[in-house]
């Protein structure tokens, strides 16, 4: 059993100091922006909650939020089941497991803008492998810079390519922690494959899957670099997800107050969803 010891705070102090320095000060700065108006030259004027009111009423915000929710929902709906399915199909041990894991982890280790650049090269209509294949072999008209559908399919496939491995790794870690007797007992009890999944594997993967869903939700909700490099938010505004929109507002229009208020709204939204999800998933624990 753990012992009660308030001195343990001393051990946590460096972590708190570092994280607080990086998290709280910038957050306060953003909050500060969000209630002011600036015309450059470091002149700021008190603006109150006007920005927040504007944002919540603006069509642009609703459109970007709508695209973002759709993007996150689609990639979660693909990556989580796909990741679990791949993890289930992996052998529990053996020489090939390490090889598989190394190869699968590879996309996770590529800098995000390289991911975007790589997919750009991959999908160029006439000289990219995928672009060439789609247009010249399958005869499908595929051009990301012109068709919003093509752009959407591409960013989703790219995200699936980039991040499904994280789900696989987490789900696989959950699976290999299940002791062999559970499978043996299920065999003896005459359980079907589905029952084994539903009553043994899924409950044991719950913790890691919660983490996987949370991470994927948060990271996809803030996705910027890969999509920006690949599509630049276009064609038109079709792939302008929240973060891309934010940058357009903040840097493109130098509308800092508005951008800050927007980002706080997103932050609050992400926090709320994550917290709800975390609480619901962890309710049964302990």
């Amino acid at each position, binding site marked *: 059993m753990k012992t009660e010891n308030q001195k343990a705070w001393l051990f946590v102090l460096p972590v708190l100091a570092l994280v607080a320095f990086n998290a709280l000060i910038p957050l306060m700065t953003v909050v500060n922006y969000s209630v002011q108006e600036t015309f450059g030259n470091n002149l700021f004027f008190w603006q109150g909650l006007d920005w927040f009111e504007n944002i919540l009423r603006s069509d642009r915000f609703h459109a970007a939020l709508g695209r973002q929710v759709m993007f996150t929902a689609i990639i979660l709906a693909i990556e989580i089941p796909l990741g679990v399915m791949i993890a289930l199909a992996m052998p529990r041990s053996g020489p090939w497991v390490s090889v598989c894991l190394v190869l699968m982890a590879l996309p996770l280790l590529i800098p995000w803008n390289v991911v975007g650049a790589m997919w750009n090269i991959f999908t160029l209509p006439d000289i990219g492998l995928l672009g060439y294949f789609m247009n010249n072999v399958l005869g499908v008209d595929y051009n990301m810079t012109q068709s919003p559908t093509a752009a959407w399919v591409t960013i989703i496939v790219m995200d699936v390519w980039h991040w499904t491995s994280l789900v696989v790794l987490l789900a696989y870690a959950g699976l290999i922690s299940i*002791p062999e*007797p*559970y499978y*043996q*007992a299920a*065999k*003896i*009890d*005459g*359980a*079907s494959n589905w*029952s084994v999944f539903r*009553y*043994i594997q899924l*409950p*044991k993967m719950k913790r890691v899957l919660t983490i996987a869903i949370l991470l994927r939700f948060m990271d996809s909700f803030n996705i910027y670099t890969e999509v920006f490099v690949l599509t630049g938010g276009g064609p038109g505004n079709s792939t302008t997800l929240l973060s891309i929109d934010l940058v357009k507002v903040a840097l493109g229009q130098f509308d800092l107050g508005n951008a800050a208020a927007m980002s706080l709204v997103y932050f609050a939204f992400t926090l709320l969803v994550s917290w709800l999800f975390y609480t619901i998933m962890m309710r049964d624990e302990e």
Partner: protein
Amino acid sequence: MAKITIDKLRHSYSPNPTGPDDYALKEIDLDWTDGGAYALLGPSGCGKSTLLNIISGLLTPSEGRVLFDGKDVTNLPPDQRNIAQVFQFPVIYDTMTVYDNLAFPLRNRGVDSARIDARVMEIATMLELEDRLATRASNLTPDNKQKISMGRGLVRDDVNVVMFDEPLTVIDPALKWKLRSKLKELHQKIAVTMIYVTHDQTEALTFADQVVVMQDGVIVQIGSPVELFERPQHTFVGHFIGSPGMNILPCEVVDGGATFQGQKIALEGKVVKTGQTTEIGIRPEYVRLSDSGIPATVRKAADIGRHTVVEMMTGGVAINAITDAAPPEPGTEVRLSFDPDQTRVYSDGWIATEVAK
């Protein structure tokens, strides 16, 4: 319920076994009659769990056959053998209630719900879990979880054999005793064949009618607890069963009799076999402290409740005696005599004396 026959069974975990050392099980032949309570006893790594997994069908043996009522089941998967197995750690379906856990094996076999209900209630009552049926299984204590594992085996009335693989490992000592007697009681009530694997002699001896003692993949003796205690067929059995175990003293065999420390020792009968090594086996219970006999020096005396274990040295060999009398002080020189009808000679580990008829 069925009679279980193990026929010339051998098993190796390596795909190309070369010598006998590659075999976890070396040539096992066994017959288990219907409705008996059996124990498989042996130290860790002796092959008892391997044998259990072969009977349940979780492992396919390298050679030999497993027969249930004369029917060859060697290659049948576990779910078609109608067996039940309870593992070392309680295996329960965390997200289900106690009721659903117990009903699970029946539902998987498409039993109708009225019948399931009746069986679950019956088994739950037997296990004293009837008031917990609606609880989520993950919230139970380890002993109740282990009861559910047992219950899932017992709930099926077509079950051939229920197997227990060291089921009390994670149970508190106080509850161990309770659960063990519950098991015994269940066996008497439903009279299904039960096989209990353990390395704990107390568990084996209290549970089973017949105990199979294994060592290094070989069965060294099959017998009732009394037989194992009274006449061990092998020095391993003598040493493994009993507390402290049988004394084993190197001796010389001359003309069908044995001499130890130059003294002739009276035996239960004639020595009929000789081998590389010959040893006298005598349980501490039958070693007497007396006025004449083999000289020994007392090293220490340990009070174990109603008796005292006296540890002594005689000619460089340790020997124990159990006595009810007041123990001698350490350092005392004593003399020992052995009860002849409990004194045997073992050659190469196996019993070598024969009782004259």
